[in-house]
């Protein structure tokens, strides 16, 4: 598959109160045809600005936007053939559903017949048949969301840009619409860039995720890889939950790293991509679900249960290793699961395979 869209060294500097602020800092990214790429990051990280530069609402300070091999950096937004789904939907309040959806077709001077046909097709596809005559303020949030999608789909854009499209929906509907967007995207084979700050949304919807922080891309990878092989502490911390410890490399043994934390030694997976010298300060990343607890004495690490919370499918424990130093453990819950009580001394088992080591 070829690159449909290519961002080359994209930079955007804003002036605010006579201070410059680099919202987007030298970003390069490629998106293949038919792919969904999610831009994920905390608010203010520049993800929306990237989207707005691709759409043409914002001019880059530097860098280029290439669409199908053509430089569109300076092209007017209405000439780009790019669809945009806004966070607030930006539906036209003075038009009904049909007129909103057919707006782009009318602009393109399709025949009456074609406008009617295409509009009805897309409305049926998003499940909005029969509400053509309704006005926007007569629709529920979920219906408005569908109108916004239909309006973007109907013009058959080369790329569909979505800016936190689900953030105004309630939790249940949000999960449902995630799957719905994914279904429609696959059905139409549409290329999509999806901005969100919700990691679960990004993980469930995207083929690849670009994690952003302070105007830069930290890592671009498929969801599974991002979770299991984070390239930076920021990514490890941002995606999922993680226990992060500071440690020191003390030895290499059997293809594993021996690292000391709190005067105890634990072993960690050693990947060929990482190079560590003996004595180097490193960060250990341990997912809470990779931590197990035991009452027996076999473990090197010991701690005291500080809190235990039952959240339905698992127990979430906070264990104090040293005063002020905690480790989180998620233990899947079943009838047989041993339950630990508050204040109890426990041994902590960590699977070496799931311990990641990275430079501190």
């Amino acid at each position, binding site marked *: 598959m070829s690159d449909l869209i290519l961002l080359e060294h994209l930079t955007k500097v*804003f002036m*605010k109160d006579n*201070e410059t*602020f680099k*919202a987007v800092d030298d970003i390069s990214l490629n998106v293949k045809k038919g792919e969904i790429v999610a831009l994920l990051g905390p*608010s*203010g990280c520049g993800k*929306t*600005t990237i989207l*707005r530069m691709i*759409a*043409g*609402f*914002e001019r880059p300070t530097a860098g280029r936007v290439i669409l199908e091999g053509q430089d569109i950096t300076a092209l*007017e*937004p*209405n*000439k*780009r*053939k*790019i*669809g*945009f789904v*806004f*966070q*607030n939907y*930006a*539906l*036209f*309040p*003075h*038009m*009904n559903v049909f007129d909103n959806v057919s*707006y*782009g077709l009318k*602009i*393109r001077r399709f025949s009456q017949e074609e406008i009617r046909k295409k509009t009805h097709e897309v409305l049926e596809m998003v499940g909005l048949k029969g509400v053509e005559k309704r*006005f926007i*303020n*007569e629709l529920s949030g979920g219906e408005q969301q569908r109108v916004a999608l239909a*309006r973007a789909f109907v*013009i058959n854009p080369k790329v569909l840009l979505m800016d936190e499209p689900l953030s105004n929906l309630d939790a249940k509907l949000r999960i449902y619409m995630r799957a719905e967007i994914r279904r429609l995207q696959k059905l139409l084979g549409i290329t999509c860039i999806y901005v969100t700050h919700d990691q679960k949304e990004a993980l469930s919807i995207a083929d690849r995720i670009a994690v952003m922080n302070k105007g830069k891309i930290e890592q671009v990878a498929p969801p599974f890889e991002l979770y299991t092989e984070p390239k930076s502490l920021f990514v490890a911390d941002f995606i999922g939950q993680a226990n992060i410890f500071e440690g020191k490399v003390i030895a290499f043994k059997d293809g594993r790293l021996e690292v000391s934390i709190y005067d105890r030694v634990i072993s960690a997976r050693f990947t060929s991509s990482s190079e560590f010298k003996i004595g180097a300060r490193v960060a250990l990343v341990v997912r809470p679900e990779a931590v197990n607890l035991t009452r027996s004495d076999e473990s090197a690490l010991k701690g005291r249960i500080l809190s235990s919370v039952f959240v339905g499918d698992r127990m979430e424990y906070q264990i104090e290793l040293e005063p002020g130093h905690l480790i989180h453990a998620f233990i899947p819950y079943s009838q047989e699961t041993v339950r630990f009580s508050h204040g109890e001394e426990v041994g902590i088992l960590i699977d070496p395979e799931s311990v990641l080591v990275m430079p501190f």
Partner: protein
Amino acid sequence: MKFSNNEEHSLKKAVVRPTALPLLVVLWALLGLFVLYPLGKLIYVVFVTDGTLDLSSITKVFTNWYSRKALFDSLVLATSVAAIGTSVGFVFAFGTTRMTLPKVIKWFIRAVIVLPFVSPPFTSSIALTLVLGPNGLLLRLLGMPDFNIYGFLGTCLAEVLTYFPIAFMTLSAVLDGIDPNLEDAAMSMGSTRWNTFKTVTLPLSLPGVGNAFLLLFGCSLADFATPLVMAGHTFPVLTTQAYLQITGMYDLKGGAAISFVLLVPALMVYLLQHYWLERRSYVTITGKSGARSSLEGANAIAKVFILGFISVVSMFIIFLYSIIFVGSLIKVWGVDNSLTLENYAYVFTVGREAIKDTVLIALVSTVLGTILGVTIGYLVSRKDLAFRKTLEFTSFLNYVLPGTVVGIAYIIAFNSRPLVLTGTMTIIVALCAFRYDVPAIRATVASLHQIDPSIEEASLSLGASRLATFLKVTLPLIIPAVTSGMRYLFVVSMTAVSAVIFLVSVQWSLLTVRILECITELLFAQAAAFSVVLLLIVFAALGLIDLLFKIAYPSYLRQLRRS
């Protein structure tokens, strides 16, 4: 430095606002001619004699005891009207926003707000004269025939009745804007209703109270019609003195000087309002405040008092307006009370030309003023426009200044070469369009401000050009603002008097001026008949504007009904 999403949003600028340099040039030329030039000429006439600086005409205003008294009276009157009007408005606003009112009282309140707005400026004066003036209805009922309403008392009463609805509307918006959770929170912490009012509601509405006070102060200061009828010789005010100086003594320079003295406080009130008060507003429009709780804002005893007050004031005002109607059907008020249609016959014979002229002038002014207002509003809401603030201020000037000042400035400017316009319809239309277009400007700016930039961006991303986006998306969205501006323009062009009174001529006369003539000749029944006819024309025109709007934009109706 961390930017929240909101700040990121504020950094966006609206994309779709095509520049129009030629438009800007024409606009500035017109504003220069019809706003800056007359004002400059006024100041020139006041301060320059035979090419040299001469302060004598200004010092004369302060040394002459009668004009000094006029200045003093004007300020006393404006302060009293502002204080009383704001208080009455506050009670009304509190009643409507914090209490469940009986339907009939709500209906009263609506009438009381609409009537002063649409009726000519003399209406309350005529009605008060019929009720409390010589031979007045109430005076005879109360058995005190020697009571004299003219002077401070009558003027103040008539102005309060005319202007308190402005305070009411300002304050009810402010009281409505206070997050109800704040009052509920105070109550849940054990505060009584009175204490909640004292410690939460009142302090939060204080900037609004200040704003209402300044608004009424400005209205009273600029009012010309009411003191002309009600004040009499013992209570001169600046507006009437400036008028009499010019029309009675043919002293243009002296009148101009008095109007200049009037200009200073009027401008100060405006500046105070805009650059000081606007920043102290606590009202935040977040869209997500809790529902107004069903708790009444006052206890049972207070409620009885408030309701009683609102009912009495409302009924008195409705009574006054019905007196106008009854008065128009009676031969000679208080002397020969037999019913007659003679007064209407008088209106349609003697006043026929005036009716035709007034309607024509109002129509033309409405159309031109609306175009002007929308254009200025559109340009002013572009953040990147050069001299944006200057453009806004210049276009507001004629509106902010008292009508007397503007009228005198116009007559000075257009009475002599290079541009002689006195006696023409052009000068009256220009005055109306460049003065009463301001609400249209404000409404346009406000509604453009409400359009989220993303709506225009959505249109762009769907392939529409900037022009197409403006015509298909932006313009339809500001149509309600345009109509509200139109309504104001028409009503005020029909009912205005203070400025145009200097500009009427043999060829072009106006209804309001006719009413004034009737009053000065003590033909109150005819004046009442004129007022009723004027009121009916205004109502008919407002209905027509609404109808046109409904035909042109049927889709709005369903929406407005829904929301």
